[in-house]
């Protein structure tokens, strides 16, 4: 097709062809084309087949209001070709058709509509019962539009941005640009979002405005250049708002242009004020076959010509209800499109200049008429126009019907901020009932159509927003408001719904193939409001998200429920439309995911361990080394700790300083035990409970000075500890201070019978058992002056030195110990080896042996609870009350009868003789090489806790009758006297 190349409004560069491949044939569009405009220019009229009836669908609008032009591009399904810029070499395919969209073997579905009334699934296919599973599979295969391969990989670059601004203006048309300029004049930092690649809105492609001097496109260009050169205004084009949330949170997605370092950029901002100036679209006209390829909105036909240089047909008929429709008909006629007739449902109130223009061009004009039907299977062959009273009709041949009933404001962004919409009898629009603080609107969204009015309303909104943000400009805003009030209002568009009839092929929603008949059926079955009809018929749930049906659905409901009323006068009975929800337009998951940044903590010896072959796992916010051996039973790591010496990186444990006059009081509040009894140089083991008495953390506390303590927490709790202590002391006005030293404190647990031998080689300090015995702590230096705080603990049950080392020295200390230990068989061990070692000692790991509901007493840790402290600790009341309850799960040690049988962690204990046969849960169970037995810890009902009780373990692998025998045994299993850790 030859393009119109000399229009001043053109946005394609006809000197720069862009090749593409459509169904194995190469074609060519131009720089600036969308995929759909390029295809349209290449003669493509059927872009897709509809979801249910497989009806042919074509280009209807240009802003993505429906799924009509969704295609598969470069393997990506459901691409909205009408808004997607044509890229060099794009591979374009139809979807949801057998063969092609033009010749779809499923086209017969359209004739089966009688068997598919609204909600037909609910009342069919379930008798007999065996039918449904088969039918469901067929439905599943038939449903869905595009296809994506499981191994598809998205190749685009995505990132994200959180721009700061005082005002965000949504919509870069004349009203939005005026608002941005007015607010910037008042010193606001402004962000302007525009979904199209250029600013200008509806002015961009229009020549005439009633009584204006400069053509509208020139006014748009002038405003755009002023906006673009203002430092205080940041313009984001190709950026569609997708979400709006309370307190003015705005999200948007930018599609990257050729010069951008990204393909999609997710934007999120929270300006103080928002101006919504998204203008209006055309309200689709409902008639028979109103979605045939060849039927499109007048604005779509106009933009095809003025923006892309494409005349949409050879011969056109217009059926409109608004002056812009008349303007489009006249303009297109002047551009060379033969217009056979223009119908307008309004009998009066047209812009006389436009009517005169039509007459001058000898275009027959039918006031009080509308399109009633089109003929033609794969395109428009003729149109039946009828007078709105139904008395007369005329059939006209044409290949293009530009049809709309009037305007519908693009109110969706506003609705996200303002909540439910209500019918406004003046404009026939659905508009917000209330506006939250800081949210303003301007322009055509309010029903303003005269260019001057649109621009002034933008200024008013910009000044109102500035005043809201604290600028001294209320007077200026009011002056413009008065100026606007004095101007004549625009001419209202029609409120026409549809000719009476069964509406069998009158499509209300294109995506879901919902007709007026379906709406009527839904109402008849008791679904009286749009929100329920949406659920019953699926209207508005498709990719267009109500872009086609949003305005018409409530009007149809009102017309159905009030059949006697005049069809142009149903307001007052119009129900609210369905709720608008984000995203306002479909957004790639990749675009939402953005830069996909991941923040995880690494310990200071992460690399050192990786070099030794560590396999890391995420533990809370950290990477921790779980294994060092290739064989995952870690027996070598375990044996080495028992026989030689191992080193474990425990840097992830929480480490805190607490000091100040009331530090002890704070510790007393959160720890169950009595922290006033900590002896100098000694380590105190302690547990924290929640109000329920359930253990949430354990660690050690030492006193490092007057009113000065250090304590440790588990890895998972470190992040919560400061807020936990502050929370539980928030009413006390205590004077104490906390410092989280977790990340700064590297920890190496040097454990095993040769641990002292290794340590003595790197320090001059006396670390003999006499000078430094079990349960003590001591500060000293390693070679070269590395300061360490060393705690003698016994979590793994061997002689252990827990070395707390400043993080920056950790690597040096690790290397030093590694070297010093080479003669003693030193090797690192990971968390899984530690798990086995501590299990053999009967030491609990919270969350592994305990559940959410497990309290301190259930774990046999009553010795950590002090009943008579001055300060009642968190959880004390619950512990005292639960103490008397004999029905609680309690921790026991178990040993498998068959030492070759190792049930997995998480196995259950069962007894068929009781009402509730699951009597316990195995926390951890392992083959112990040191003991040559399989031992574990389990929570069991109190009646099964006595030593020697036989238990049946069921692991869930085989049949429930396949049990393994176990016995309750005393803990610790290994070195019960604790001699080895005291060596």
């Amino acid at each position: 097709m030859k393009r119109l190349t000399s229009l001043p409004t053109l946005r394609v560069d006809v000197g720069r062809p862009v090749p593409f491949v459509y169904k194995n044939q190469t074609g060519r569009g131009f720089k600036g084309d969308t995929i759909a405009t390029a295809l349209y220019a290449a003669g493509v009229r059927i872009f897709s087949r509809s979801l249910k009836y497989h009806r042919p669908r074509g280009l209807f609008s240009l802003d993505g209001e429906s799924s009509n032009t969704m295609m598969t591009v470069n393997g990506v399904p459901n691409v909205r070709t009408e808004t997607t810029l044509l890229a060099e070499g794009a591979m374009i395919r139809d979807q949801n058709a057998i063969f092609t969209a033009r010749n779809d073997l499923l086209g017969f579905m359209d004739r089966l509509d009688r068997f598919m009334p609204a909600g037909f699934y609910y009342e069919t296919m379930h008798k007999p019962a065996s039918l449904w599973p088969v039918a469901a599979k067929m439905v599943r295969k038939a449903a869905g539009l595009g296809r994506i391969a499981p191994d598809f990989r998205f190749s685009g670059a995505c990132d994200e941005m959180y721009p700061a601004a005082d005002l965000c203006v949504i919509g870069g048309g004349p009203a939005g640009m005026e608002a941005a300029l007015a607010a910037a004049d008042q010193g606001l930092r402004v962000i302007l979002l525009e979904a199209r690649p250029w600013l200008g809105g509806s002015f961009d492609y229009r020549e005439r405005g009633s009584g204006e001097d400069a053509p509208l496109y020139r006014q748009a260009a002038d405003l755009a250049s002023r906006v673009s050169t203002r430092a205080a205004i940041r313009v984001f084009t190709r950026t569609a708002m997708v979400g709006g949330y309370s307190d003015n949170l705005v999200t948007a997605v930018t599609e990257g242009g050729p010069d951008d370092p990204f393909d999609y950029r997710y934007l999120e901002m929270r300006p103080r004020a928002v101006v919504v100036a998204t203008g209006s679209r055309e309200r689709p006209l409902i008639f028979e076959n109103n979605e045939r390829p060849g039927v499109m909105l007048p604005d779509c036909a106009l933009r095809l010509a003025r923006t892309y240089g494409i005349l949409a047909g050879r011969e056109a008929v217009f059926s409109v209800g608004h002056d812009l429709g008349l303007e489009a008909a006249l303009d297109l006629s002047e551009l060379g499109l033969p217009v056979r007739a223009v119908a307008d449902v309004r009998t009066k109130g047209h812009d006389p200049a436009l009517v005169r223009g039509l007459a001058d061009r000898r275009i027959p004009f039918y006031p009080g008429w509308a399109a009633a039907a089109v003929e033609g299977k794969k395109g428009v062959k003729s149109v039946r126009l009828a007078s709105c009273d139904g008395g007369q009709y005329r059939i006209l041949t044409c290949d293009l019907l530009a049809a709309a009933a009037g305007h519908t404001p693009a109110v969706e962004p506003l609705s996200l901020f303002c909540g439910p919409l209500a019918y406004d009898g003046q404009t026939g629009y659905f508009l917000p009932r209330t506006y939250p603080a800081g949210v303003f609107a301007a322009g055509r969204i309010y029903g303003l159509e005269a260019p001057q009015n649109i621009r002034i309303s933008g200024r008013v909104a910009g000044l109102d927003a500035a005043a809201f943000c604290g600028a001294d400009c209320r007077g200026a805003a009011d002056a413009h408001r008065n100026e606007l009030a004095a101007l004549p209002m625009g001419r209202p568009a029609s409120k026409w719904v549809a000719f009476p009839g069964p509406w069998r092929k009158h499509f209300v929603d294109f995506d879901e193939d919902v007709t007026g008949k379906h709406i009527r059926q839904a109402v008849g079955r008791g679904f009286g409001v749009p929100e329920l009809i949406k659920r019953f018929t699926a209207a508005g749930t498709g990719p267009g998200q109500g872009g086609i049906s949003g305005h018409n659905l409530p009007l149809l409901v009102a017309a159905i429920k009030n059949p006697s009323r005049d069809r142009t006068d149903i307001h007052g009975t119009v129900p609210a439309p369905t709720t608008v929800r984000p995203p306002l337009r479909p957004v790639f998951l990749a675009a939402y995911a953005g830069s996909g940044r991941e923040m995880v903590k690494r310990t200071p010896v992460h690399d050192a361990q990786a070099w030794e072959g560590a396999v890391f796992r995420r533990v809370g916010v950290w990477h921790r080394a779980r294994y060092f051996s290739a064989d995952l039973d870690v027996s070598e790591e375990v044996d080495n700790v028992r026989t030689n010496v191992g080193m474990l990186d425990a840097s992830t444990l929480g480490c805190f300083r607490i000091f100040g006059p009331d530090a002890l009081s704070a510790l007393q509040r959160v720890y169950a035990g009595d922290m006033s009894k900590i002896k100098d140089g000694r380590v105190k083991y302690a547990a924290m409970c929640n109000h329920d008495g359930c253990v949430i953390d354990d660690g050690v506390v030492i006193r490092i000075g007057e009113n000065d303590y250090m304590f440790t927490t588990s890895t998972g709790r470190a992040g919560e500890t400061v807020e936990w202590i502050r929370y539980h002391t928030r009413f006390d006005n205590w004077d104490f201070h906390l410092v989280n030293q977790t990340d700064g404190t590297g920890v190496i647990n040097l454990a095993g019978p040769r641990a002292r031998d290794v340590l003595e080689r790197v320090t001059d300090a006396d670390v003999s058992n006499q000078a430094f015995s079990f349960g003590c702590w001591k500060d000293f230096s390693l070679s070269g002056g590395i300061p360490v705080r060393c705690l003698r603990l016994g979590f793994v049950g061997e002689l252990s030195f827990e070395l707390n080392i400043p993080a920056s020295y950790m690597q040096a200390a690790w290397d030093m110990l590694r070297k010093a230990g080479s003669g003693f068989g030193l090797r690192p061990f990971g968390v899984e080896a530690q798990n086995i070692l501590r299990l053999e000692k009967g030491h609990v790991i919270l969350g592994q042996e305990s559940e959410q509901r497990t309290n301190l007493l259930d774990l046999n840790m009553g010795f950590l609870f002090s009943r008579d402290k001055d300060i009642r600790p968190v959880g004390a009341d619950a512990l005292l009350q639960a103490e008397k309850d004999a029905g609680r799960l309690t921790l026991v040690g178990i040993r498998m009868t068959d030492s070759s049988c190792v049930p997995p962690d998480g196995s259950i204990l069962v007894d068929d003789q009781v009402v509730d046969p699951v009597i316990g849960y195995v926390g951890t169970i392992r083959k112990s090489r040191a003991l040559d037995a399989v031992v574990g810890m389990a929570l069991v009902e109190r009646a099964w806790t006595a030593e020697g009780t036989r238990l049946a373990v069921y692991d869930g692998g085989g049949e429930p009758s396949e049990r393994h025998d176990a016995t309750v045994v005393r803990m610790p299993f290994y070195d019960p006297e604790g001699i080895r850790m005291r060596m």
Partner: protein
Amino acid sequence: MFGAKHILPKGNPPLESAYDAVLIGGGLHNLATAWFLAKEHNMNRVAVLEKNYIGYGGAGRNTAIVRANQRTQKNIPLYKEALDLWPVLTRELDFNLMFYNCGNLNLLHSEAAVKAARTNIATAKFLGVESHLLDAAETAKRVPALNLSQKITHPIHGAMYHPPGGIVRHDAVVWGLAKGAAEKGVHIHQQTEALGIATKNGRVTGVKTPAGTIYTPRVLVSAGGYTAGLLYHMLKIKMPISVLTIQAMVTQPLKPLLDHVVSSGAYHVYANQTLKGEIATGAHMDPWPNYTTQTTAGYIKHQAEALVELMPCLAGVKFMRSWAGLADMTPDMAPIMDGNDPVEGVYMNCGWGYFGFKSCSATGRYMARFLATGKCPDRLKPFALARFKNHRLMGETAALVNYTPDN
């Protein structure tokens, strides 16, 4: 052939001055209770009061996922009975509830998760509910779109596979039960708000509505997220509940890609493909109470980040619609079903969190029995409110919950 009868009552039936039972809340649990009261206990002078439209709350805003692989022996049988009821209800209501038995896969991303799954699997199997552990390769065979790389945030170790589960069309359940109950004489009053519960000498006497007081000897409050607030404001009964918004969203419709319900605790995600071809996904709750049913920007982004990592092909798919509902969470993730305490004749059924849909059929049946006999069925006894003051949390969740200050 079609469209002969109403599904929803057109307009309201007359509001009578007395009923045998008044059910506050027109959601799934009360509609099911009403159905079973009429069907199994011949109690059909029953009113269901709904301040909006039936199915407007959680009934229409849930995952639509059904399963019976909970953790404890108190819970599993209830969900198992609910699962078995879908085909039965489809037949009895003569309404296609569209139970799609595709099976559920719970992805496991750590040794700890595998351990937790073992407990669920063993308990389920022990109680006669099918459930298996799959390794990573077997999991990927069932869901080819999954990312088996070790380099992702939470690498996949395997899955808990639960073949009896699947999805049910939630709106169909609402409409089917409403149609069935109304046919048996139950009065469903839409747009009728319960304003208060009248009591005398510790007994319920009636329910106040804008149209006057309805006299009744028994009232069941089961209004989803609103239940706890109603109990407090009508009767000063304080519940251990936090009401949170839970969100979900769908992608554009696709040809079949996911053959099972897939969920992941570590990523806070479930995803399943609906009969229409959309991938329905969700699971997140912002951890603070509120009664809005609005979605958040943070969540849709989080969901995309998670899914793109878990199933990379979805990066090229678009989200098109999101919504939210209310989840009334308890400290132990198990519901509260109780009655006659502290007010004789007042029953409550709440705290379902995000499990309310999958359980509604069986719960309705037991609550009907409770109301009809005045005696708590054994199955419901463990769910009494008193368990909280007795420090007997249920054990449905192994980990601490993040929406109460108590952790």
